[in-house]
Structures are given as structure tokens and as C-alpha cells.
């Protein structure tokens, strides 16, 4: 009964003209008299009896779960039981997920990343630098050395035909490294300058420029946000272990993209080195000079890393010569 928990055992009687009577079986009197057209059929779910809703709000629950009140077939229930449809789903669902997260979202990120207004990326870059300054100390390189590197860089950049202005700043970071921010700032650590020769340093700078020129920072941002949103929309109702497994899969996927971007930046660097008349071999020698290169990686450990295996990178560079 509508709005109440009272339940009456009853039977429903039909006539061909559509008229419908519901009789209570405990006291043998009529509860409802109406026409089937005025009634609404409830949702059809596998294994669950289908309710018939009367105009006044009461409804009737049959004993038989297979009974259908109206000729309209439950398309959904049909699909959910039809084995072919289910097999199709079992095949297409994981495939679609794979496609969405490994092809569709990255492709969308690649196309929209260059469209993000430069002012936004500039602000992101400056903000990142501000927060990173806490972990870096002022450069200990001599002033003349810094000026030397800057002069050489400006000449090389012009020769390489770089389309934007890249500003180099020096810091003391504790290990040889360099990175580029989306606003065109390139941070170079003293330790890297001391480790590499001029040409090798140029190669590394070109690699970092490649990340900016190819909009990798923006792409990662869009990809991560879009991935999180799509995940929330499609899989938001999953709980527990399934969530962890899929989350793990997605972060492994992100690492794969990171590796692709590193390779693209390597390719960019080789291109620009050739354009400025420097032998691309210096890029390979720079990679070799960086610490940690001697340790051979097991192939599966590469999946956990954001950079491709060093040997592979060197091999690829040497193939282009």
C-alpha cells in the first residue's frame, strides 16, 4: 500500500478487454478494480518479480518472477541475460577502458595542451619555481662561468631556431640535474655544469627545451585531470581491491607516457644538436656521464620508472647518427 507497510495477500484477475480486478485472498473481497492501461509496469530485473503500480499508488507484487504485465519486452533485462551480449560486454568493457586511458585521453591531452593560454602555463611555472626554491640553494658557480654558459646558450639557441625565449637560472641542488618549467625557465644545477662539458650541457639543455616545446607539462596536467575525472565518472562505484588494482594500472600507464615523453625529448635534442652542428653522440656521452648509469635494470623494473632505461636511450640516440 502506498506510504504504508501494510501488505495484503491477493490475487489479480484479468479479462481480455484489459479490465483488472485485485481480490484479497484472506477476506475474499475486492481491493481494486481498474484497467491495465491505467497501470504502470515496474522495472524489470532478472530474477525479481515485476511490480504493477495502480493509479492510486498501491502496487501488486506477483509470485512469479517471469510474469510480464505488458507486452513491452524488457530490453535491458533481455540484454543482461542474453549470453552473446554478455560475452560482447566482457570483451568490449576492458578493451574500451584500455583504449580510453591509453589512447583517447592522451590524444585529447596532446591536442588540447598547446591550446592552454600561455599566461596560465607561465603562472604554473612561476608557482612551481616558488615552491621548488625551498629545496634548492643559490648557485655556487662563479659569476663569469654562469655568464659564459648563458652567452653560449643564447648563440646556440638562435642557431637552433628555437621559437621561444628560454631563460637559464643556476642553483645548487645536491646532484647533477636540470629541468624545464612550462614558462620557459630552465633550472640547471651546479653539479651538472661541473660534470659535463659544454657540448654535453647543450645537449641536456636541448632535451629540457624539448619538454617545453612539446607541451609535455601541460599534457601531463590535462591527462592527469581528465584521467581522474573519467575514472571517477565510470568507476566511481567500485570499492576496495578493484579500485586499488585499477589505480595501480592507471599509474603504470602514466609512467608509460612519461617514458614516451622522455624519448620524444631525446629525439628533439638530437634534432637540434644536428641543426647547430654538434655531433649527437654528445647526448649519449652525457647520459653515460650521469651517475646511476652503470646499474643494469631488469626489464620489469622499467615499468615502475618514469624514464626509459638508460641503455635504451643511448642506443636510440646512436641509431640516429
Amino acid at each position, binding site marked *: 500500500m502506498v506510504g504504508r*507497510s501494510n*501488505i495484503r495477500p491477493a490475487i489479480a484477475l484479468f479479462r481480455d478487454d484489459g479490465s483488472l480486478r485485485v481480490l484479497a485472498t484472506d477476506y475474499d473481497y475486492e481491493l481494486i478494480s481498474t484497467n491495465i492501461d491505467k497501470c504502470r509496469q515496474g*522495472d524489470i530485473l*532478472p530474477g*525479481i518479480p515485476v511490480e504493477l503500480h495502480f493509479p492510486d499508488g498501491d502496487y501488486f507484487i506477483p509470485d512469479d518472477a517471469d510474469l510480464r504485465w505488458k507486452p513491452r519486452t524488457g530490453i535491458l533485462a533481455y540484454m543482461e541475460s542474453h549470453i552473446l551480449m554478455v560475452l560482447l560486454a566482457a570483451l568490449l568493457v576492458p578493451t574500451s577502458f584500455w583504449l580510453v586511458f591509453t589512447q583517447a585521453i592522451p590524444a585529447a591531452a596532446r591536442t588540447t595542451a598547446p591550446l592552454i593560454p600561455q599566461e596560465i602555463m607561465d603562472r604554473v611555472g612561476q608557482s612551481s619555481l616558488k615552491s621548488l626554491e625551498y629545496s634548492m640553494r643559490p648557485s655556487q658557480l662563479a659569476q663569469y662561468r654562469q655568464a659564459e654558459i648563458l652567452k653560449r646558450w643564447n648563440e646556440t639557441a638562435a642557431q637552433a631556431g628555437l621559437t621561444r625565449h628560454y631563460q637559464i637560472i643556476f642553483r645548487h641542488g645536491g646532484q647533477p640535474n636540470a629541468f624545464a618549467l612550462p614558462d620557459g625557465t630552465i633550472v640547471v644545477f651546479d653539479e651538472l655544469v661541473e660534470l659535463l662539458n659544454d657540448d654535453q650541457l647543450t645537449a641536456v639543455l636541448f632535451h629540457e627545451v624539448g619538454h617545453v616545446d612539446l607541451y609535455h607539462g601541460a599534457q601531463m596536467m590535462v591527462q592527469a585531470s581528465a584521467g581522474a575525472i573519467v575514472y571517477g565518472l*565510470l568507476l566511481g*562505484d567500485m570499492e576496495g581491491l578493484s579500485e*586499488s588494482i585499477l589505480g595501480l594500472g592507471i599509474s603504470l600507464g602514466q609512467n608509460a607516457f612519461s617514458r614516451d615523453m622522455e624519448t620524444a625529448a631525446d629525439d628533439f635534442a638530437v634534432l637540434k644538436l644536428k641543426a647547430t652542428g654538434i655531433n649527437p653522440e654528445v647526448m649519449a656521452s652525457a647520459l653515460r656521464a650521469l651517475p646511476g648509469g652503470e646499474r643494469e635494470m631488469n626489464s620489469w623494473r622499467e615499468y615502475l620508472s618514469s624514464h626509459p632505461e638508460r641503455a635504451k636511450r643511448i642506443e636510440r640516440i646512436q641509431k640516429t647518427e
Partner: protein
Amino acid sequence: MTSTTTFTNERRAEIEFSATPGGYTKLWLVNMLLTLATLGIYGAWAKVRNNQYLYGHTRIEGHRLQYLATPKQILMGRILALSVLLILVGVSMTHPMAAVGVYIALIVAAPWLIVQGLRFTYRNTAYRNVRFNFKGDYTGAFVNFILLPVLSAFTLFLALPWVIKRIHQFMFGNCEFGGERFNLNTSSGVYYKAAFLVFILNTLLMIVIFAGAGSSVALLASGSDQNQAERASQIISGMIVPLIIAMYAVPYLVQAAFAAVIRNHVVNHLQADELARFHSEITVLGYMGVVTLNAIIILFTLGLAFPAAKVLKMRYLASKTTVFVTPRLDHMANTVDGKESAFGEEAAGLFDSDLSIV
């Protein structure tokens, strides 16, 4: 500890769960396919159908639980939640310094979202035409979900079992059915005992895993004809797999043990005076067994076995739960409508912070 009160004229109501792992998997898969094909829009309908199936196959005294949310409600909630999320993402990307403000806004909004979400789920659950209701308020949510957990950090998390007890009290002790209020009288002692059990179990499992790793490493490293680099990398490989297992499997199992103990306690102490009371007798081993089986099948099917796993777990829980009701149940009147917005519940799903009740 079981509740020893009995009500006058109470009768035992059996819970039957007739869903099948195969049946639900078929329904879930097809609905997931349709959701993907419609770029997620059909997801609102899919969610309703999934829940209708699971609720509808849960019978108490032969009468089925009802899930009354409409796809439109859920769709509206999702659209709203998505819009808010996009605005937040946009703001924090264009004004990175505003990120602090965004976090504060989220903390302020979270209790409201939690209450909204719980209200939506409760109010759209009905038994014999009478909807449930949730009477918790914003203050309660703020204190129990934000304030106390943060404060418990200052006690080196020793207060955490007590905080969890309070959270459960808030989530389940504010339940209403047809105007009748449910009471939950849990004891902190049981929560602390369960936490202690968890601690012991965790330590034991860690010891076993690292002992296993250590002995395999010792075996590997004992080969004298390997050079140092190879040996070093083998030692590292020998440690990584147990570490990964430990990081994922141990918390999962340990959590299951805790949940088993607490579930019995909470259910046994949940009652509406002279209307209904519950009894749960799941065993720690039984529950951990179901949970472990689920983990294995989900792992080997890369998540596709999720619907089957859900049915298996619900089936176990239902088989160990009984309800005792009085004749008052046969004359209740519905006191709430289902016009609640789904925003809270869907925002929680989108932000990946939803609470599961069962």
C-alpha cells in the same frame, strides 16, 4: 558480545539473498558497456539498476528491499558534482596560490557532502514501502569525520579506535525507519580489542613475509660464482616482490579482520525499541576467507570479477545476519520522501571518497 534484550511478541525474520554471482556479473557488464558507449551518461541508469538488482534480491521475511533512487536524480547529482570539480580544477590551475583556499573550501564542504550522501542513500532505501532516513547533521559530521580524526593524531593515533567507534555511531546510530529512531550502543572496549588484534596480526604477517624474503635472499646470495652486481640486483629483486605483497595484501587482510569483529559488534547493538533488532555472527576466519577469495579472483581477472566478488561477500554477510521484528512492523507509515538531491553522494563518488554502508 550479543545483545540480550528481546522485544515483546518478536519474531525471527530470515534474510534471503538470492542474487547470483553470474546473474549480477551479466547485468553489471552489460550496463558498464552501455555506460562506456554513452560516455558515462548512462552510468546513472546503470547505478540504479545495479542497486535495484542487489536490493531486490535481498528479502527479509520474503519482502524485498527497495532501491528508490531515480536515474535522473543521480544524473543531476553527477552533473552538478562534475561542474564543481571542473571549477575547482580550473581555479587551482590558473591561480596556483588559490590552492590553499580550495583545500579549505573542501574541508568546509566535506561534512555537508557526507551528510547529504548518507541522507540520499538512506532515504532511497525502503522496506515494505517505508523509507529509511538519516538524522545526522553537519556538526556531527564535522566533529566525527574531521575534527576528531585530526585531533587523534596528537595522541599518536591511540585514540583512533575510539574515533572509528564515533564515526560508526554517527553513520548507523542516526538511522530512522518510518519515524522510529534506531539506537546504536557500541563500546569503545571492543574497538580497542579489535585494534589490538589487528596490530598483532599485522606484526605476525610482516614477520612471516620478511622472514620468507630473508631466507630466499640468503639462498640466492649463497651462490659463490656470481659477481657482486648480479648478487646485489638479485637481493633487491628478492625483496621487492615480498615488499609489494606486504604493501597491498597485508593492510587488506588486516582491515578485513578488523571489519569482521566490528561488524558483529555494530549489528548486534543496533536496534529500534520494540520494533527491530539485529544479530550478526560472521566469523573472522569466514569473512577473511571470502575477502581473500575475492581478492584473488579480482586480481586474476584484472577487476572484471568485481560484481561476482560483491555478490559473494553480500551472500556471506546475509547468511550470517538475522533480524528480529515485532508486529509493529506491519503497521508503519512512511515519513520521508525521496526528493533528496544526489549531489552529495555523487560528489563523493567523483572525488573518490564515498562511504560504503554494507
